[in-house]
C-alpha cells in the first residue's frame, strides 16, 4: 500500500544522495555499531575484524583513555582504573556510585562521560569504515548524519536522558533512541516478512527486557513491555563467582580443604583476585553453554588456587531464581498485552545471555514452541538500529517503508498528599502521548504548589523513581480547593518526558523538561563539551552560530517548499506576514553575526508558520484517509 508522502524539507534538492546513518547498540558488556550498505544492514568491525567492542574504559593519568579489548586486558593489572558495566549506572549521580567517584589516577568520571568514551570509539570506527573520517588536512568530505542508539525498553526517563547526553558528548547527532527489543523486532520482522504477534525475550549482559509486538503490513506496534534494568548475564556470572569464591584454597597450603571464605564474603579478596575470578566465572559460564561440565583449575594473582568441577546442573540450580524472575516478567508482559503464551506467533531470543541452554529451555516451555535464534543474538539489536537510522535519514527505497509505534515502559505520575502516587500516564501507553490532570490546593490562601514527578508502578512515592521536582508559584490566594491546577505530561517518541503546570483561572504557568535527578543540567553538559573538544570560548560561540545558521537555512527551505506546494492554504495576510519573517531571517542568516538574533528569527518564523504547518498536516491526513477509502472500494469490487 502506497502511503502518501509529505514532501520532506531539505530532502528535495538531492533525492538520490545516500546519507550516512548508523545504529549503535550501547551494551552493558559489549557495544556495536552497524550501518546499511547497498540496502543490507551490516555490523562494522574494527581493524582486527572484531564486531564486539567490550564496554570497558581504562583511565590513566595524562593519557587519553583506552576503550574496549585494551581496557579489558588491564582489569587484572589495574582494576581500580578500569570501568566495566557502566550502563548499570546510567542516570545515577556520582554520589550514588563509589566505583566511579574513586577512579584512582585520573579523578572521578560520571557514567555519562564513561559511556561517551565508548560511543566516541564507535563513532570513529564508523567514520573510518564509511569514509567520513577527516583527511590528512583535517577536512571531512562526508559526515555521519545521525545515529539511532538503543536503550533497554525498561530504561526510565533519567537513564534515557543520560544516554542522549552521552551521545551529545561524543559528538554524535541522535536521530532517535530506540528500545532494544523493538530494534531486534525490526531486524527479524523485515528479514522474515513476519505478520502476527511476536515476543522478544532480550537478556543482555546487565539488563532484561521482554516486549510483545504486533507486526502487520509494515507497522511494528508494541503492545506491552516489561523488564528489569538490574538483571542480566552478569548476574548469572556472579552465581558462579560466588560458588568459586567459596572454593578458594590458600596459596600456602596446597591440598588443604576449602578455605574459610564464605559464599558471600568477598571482602578479603584483593581487587586483582576479584577481577581475575570474575573473568574466569564468565569463561566457565560460556563453556557450560555447550559442555555438561567444566573442570576449573585456576590460580589467582595472589597465588591462591581454585580447583573444582562445575556441572551444568549445578550452575542451573544456582541461577534458577534469576531465570524465574525473567519468566515471571514475561508472563506479566503477556497479561498486559491481553494474551496467553499460546497466542504468540513467534518468540525471538536476543542478547548474548540467551545462549545459555537453560534460558532457551525455559522460554520454549513457556510458549510451547522453539524460539527463533537465526540472527546472531549479539548483533541483532545493532542491525535493527541501523535499519531504523537508514529509514529516518530518508534513504528508504519506494515501498521499503515501515512505522514504529512504541510504548512507555513504566507509569508516570505525581506525588500527592501522604506520599502517594497519582498515576497520569500508565505503562504501555503508546508514544508520543500526552495527558492532563487537574489538581487543587489543600490550604486556604496557598500560593505555590510543589510538583514532584515520579516513575514506577508502586503506590508509594518512596518506592518509585524520582524524576524531578518543580514549583508552580504565583497562584492567587483562594480558599482551599478553589484553584484549578492542570498538570500536563508529554512524552515524545524517544520516551522522554516534559511536564507543565498551569493554574487555569489565572493562566500562571511553570514547566520543566525532566532531567535533573542524576545531576547533569544543560550547563554541566555544555561545560563537558567545552572540555571534551578543548574549544576556547570563541570556538564555542562560532560553533553555536554555525548551528543556528544551518537551522535557519533548513527552516527557510522547508517553508518555501511548503508555500510552493500548498500556498493556497494561506490567507493573503498570512502570506504577507510569513514573507516578511522569511526576509528578516534570510538577512540574519546571510550576515551570520549574532546567534541570539538568529535564534529569535527562527522562533519568529516558526511561530508565524505553526498554523500553516498544522493545516498542511491536516490536508495530508485527509488525503491519506481518502486514499484508503478508494483502496477499500477497489478491494471490494
Amino acid at each position, binding site marked *: 500500500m502506497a*502511503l*502518501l508522502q*509529505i514532501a*520532506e*524539507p*531539505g*530532502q528535495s534538492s538531492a533525492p538520490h544522495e545516500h546519507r550516512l546513518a548508523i545504529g549503535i547498540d550501547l551494551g552493558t558488556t559489549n557495544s556495536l555499531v552497524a550501518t546499511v550498505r547497498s540496502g543490507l544492514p551490516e555490523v562494522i568491525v574494527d581493524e582486527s575484524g572484531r564486531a564486539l567492542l567490550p564496554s570497558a574504559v581504562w583511565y590513566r593519568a595524562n593519557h587519553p583513555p583506552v576503550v574496549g579489548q585494551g581496557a579489558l586486558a588491564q582489569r587484572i593489572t589495574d582494576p581500580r582504573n578500569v570501568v566495566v558495566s557502566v550502563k548499570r549506572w546510567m542516570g545515577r549521580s556520582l554520589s550514588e556510585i563509589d566505583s566511579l567517584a574513586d577512579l584512582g589516577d585520573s579523578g572521578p568520571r560520571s557514567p555519562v562521560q564513561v559511556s561517551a568514551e565508548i560511543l566516541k570509539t564507535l563513532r570513529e570506527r564508523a567514520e573510518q569504515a564509511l569514509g567520513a573520517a577527516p583527511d590528512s588536512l583535517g577536512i571531512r568530505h562526508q559526515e555521519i*548524519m*545521525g545515529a539511532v542508539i538503543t536503550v533497554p525498553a525498561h530504561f526510565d526517563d533519567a537513564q534515557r536522558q543520560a544516554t542522549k547526553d552521552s551521545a551529545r558528548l561524543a559528538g554524535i547527532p541522535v*536521530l*532517535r533512541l530506540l528500545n532494544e527489543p523493538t530494534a531486534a523486532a525490526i531486524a527479524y520482522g523485515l528479514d522474515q516478512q513476519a505478520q502476527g504477534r511476536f515476543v522478544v525475550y532480550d537478556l543482555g549482559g546487565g539488563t532484561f527486557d521482554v516486549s510483545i509486538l504486533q507486526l502487520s*503490513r509494515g*507497522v511494528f506496534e508494541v503492545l506491552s513491555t516489561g523488564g528489569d534494568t538490574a538483571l542480566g548475564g552478569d548476574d548469572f556470572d556472579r552465581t558462579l563467582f560466588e560458588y568459586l569464591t567459596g572454593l578458594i584454597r590458600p596459596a600456602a597450603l596446597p591440598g588443604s580443604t576449602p578455605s574459610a571464605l564464605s559464599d558471600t564474603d568477598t571482602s578479603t579478596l584483593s581487587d586483582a583476585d576479584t577481577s581475575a575470578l570474575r573473568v574466569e566465572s564468565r569463561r566457565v559460564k560460556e563453556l557450560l553453554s555447550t559442555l555438561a561440565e567444566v573442570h576449573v583449575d585456576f590460580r589467582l594473582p595472589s597465588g591462591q588456587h581454585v580447583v573444582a568441577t562445575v556441572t551444568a546442573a549445578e550452575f542451573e540450580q544456582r541461577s534458577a531464581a534469576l531465570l524465574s524472575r525473567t519468566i515471571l516478567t514475561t*508472563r*506479566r508482559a503477556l*497479561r498486559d498485552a491481553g494474551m496467553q503464551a499460546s497466542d504468540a506467533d513467534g518468540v525471538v531470543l536476543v542478547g548474548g545471555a540467551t545462549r545459555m541452554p537453560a534460558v532457551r529451555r525455559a522460554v520454549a516451555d513457556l510458549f510451547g514452541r522453539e524460539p527463533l535464534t537465526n540472527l546472531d543474538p549479539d548483533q541483532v539489536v545493532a542491525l535493527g538500529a541501523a535499519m531504523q537510522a537508514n*529509514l*529516518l*535519514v*530518508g534513504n528508504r527505497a519506494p515501498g521499503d517503508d515501515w*512505522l*514504529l*509505534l512504541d510504548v512507555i515502559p513504566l507509569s508516570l505520575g505525581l506525588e500527592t498528599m501522604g506520599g502517594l502516587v497519582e498515576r497520569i500516564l500508565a505503562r504501555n*501507553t*503508546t*508514544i*508520543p*502521548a*500526552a495527558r492532563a490532570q487537574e489538581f487543587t490546593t489543600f490550604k486556604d490562601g496557598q500560593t505555590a504548589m510543589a510538583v514532584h514527578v515520579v516513575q514506577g508502578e508502586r503506590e508509594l512515592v518512596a518506592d518509585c523513581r524520582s524524576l524531578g521536582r518543580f514549583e508552580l508559584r504565583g497562584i492567587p490566594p483562594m480558599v482551599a480547593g478553589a484553584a484549578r491546577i492542570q498538570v500536563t505530561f*508529554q512524552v*515524545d*517518541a524517544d520516551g522522554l518526558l516534559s511536564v507543565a503546570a498551569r493554574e487555569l483561572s489565572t493562566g500562571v504557568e511553570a514547566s520543566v523538561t525532566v532531567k535533573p535527578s542524576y545531576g547533569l543540567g544543560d550547563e554541566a553538559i555544555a561545560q563537558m563539551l567545552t572540555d571534551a573538544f578543548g574549544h576556547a570560548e570563541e570556538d564555542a560561540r562560532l560553533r553555536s552560530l554555525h548551528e543556528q545558521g544551518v*537551522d535557519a537555512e*533548513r*527552516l527557510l527551505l*522547508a517553508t518555501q517548499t511548503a508555500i510552493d506546494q500548498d500556498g493556497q492554504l494561506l490567507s493573503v495576510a498570512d502570506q504577507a506576514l510569513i514573507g516578511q519573517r522569511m526576509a528578516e531571517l534570510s538577512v540574519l542568516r546571510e550576515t551570520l553575526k549574532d546567534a541570539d538574533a538568529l535564534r529569535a528569527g*527562527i522562533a519568529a518564523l*516558526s511561530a508565524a*508558520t*505553526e498554523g500553516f*504547518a*498544522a493545516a498542511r*498536516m*491536516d490536508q*495530508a*491526513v*485527509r488525503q*491519506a*484517509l481518502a*486514499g*484508503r*477509502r478508494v483502496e*477499500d472500494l477497489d478491494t471490494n469490487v
Partner: protein
Amino acid sequence: MNDPFALLGLPVQYALDRSALESAYRQVQGVVHPDRFATSSDRDLRVAVQWATATNEAVRVLRDPVKRAALLCERHGHPVDAESNTSMPASFLIQQMSWRESLDEARDSGDPAALEALRRSLDAARTSLSQRVERSIDHQQNWVEAVAAVREWMFVERFADAVEAAEFALG
C-alpha cells in the same frame, strides 16, 4: 485534530468497524508520526508530535467501547460523571455482590474452573451491555439509558480487572 472520530475519518456512532479503525490509525500515523520528520525543522517536528499524540489518544478512546460510549454521551450533553454519581439499580448491585462472593471463593479454593466460569459470565455481561449501549445510542438516542448502561459497564470492567489479577496470581 482533537475529535477522535473526525481525526480518523470514522462515522460518529457507537458501532465500530474495528478493522477500519486499525487501518485508519496506521494510515494517519504513517503521515504524522515524528519519525517521518526526523531530519526536518523543529517546527515540523513539534507539529508532528502534537498530531501523533492526538492520533494515539483518538485510537485509545475509540478502541475501548466504554470510553467510546462515554465520549458520545458527553458530546450529546450527558456526561457519565462516574465519580460523583454512584447510585445503581438494586438488581445490578445484587449481581455485583454475588460475583464478588464467587471471586472470593475461587481465590480461597484456588480453583481455576471457578474463575473460568466467572470470566464467562463477565463476557456475557459485556456482550449484553454492548448491545444495550448500541441500541440506546445509535438507534434510540436515549442518553439517559445509555449513561446508565455505561456506568454499569464501568463497574463490570473494574471487577474484570480483579478477576484477571486473581487468575494471574494462580498462574
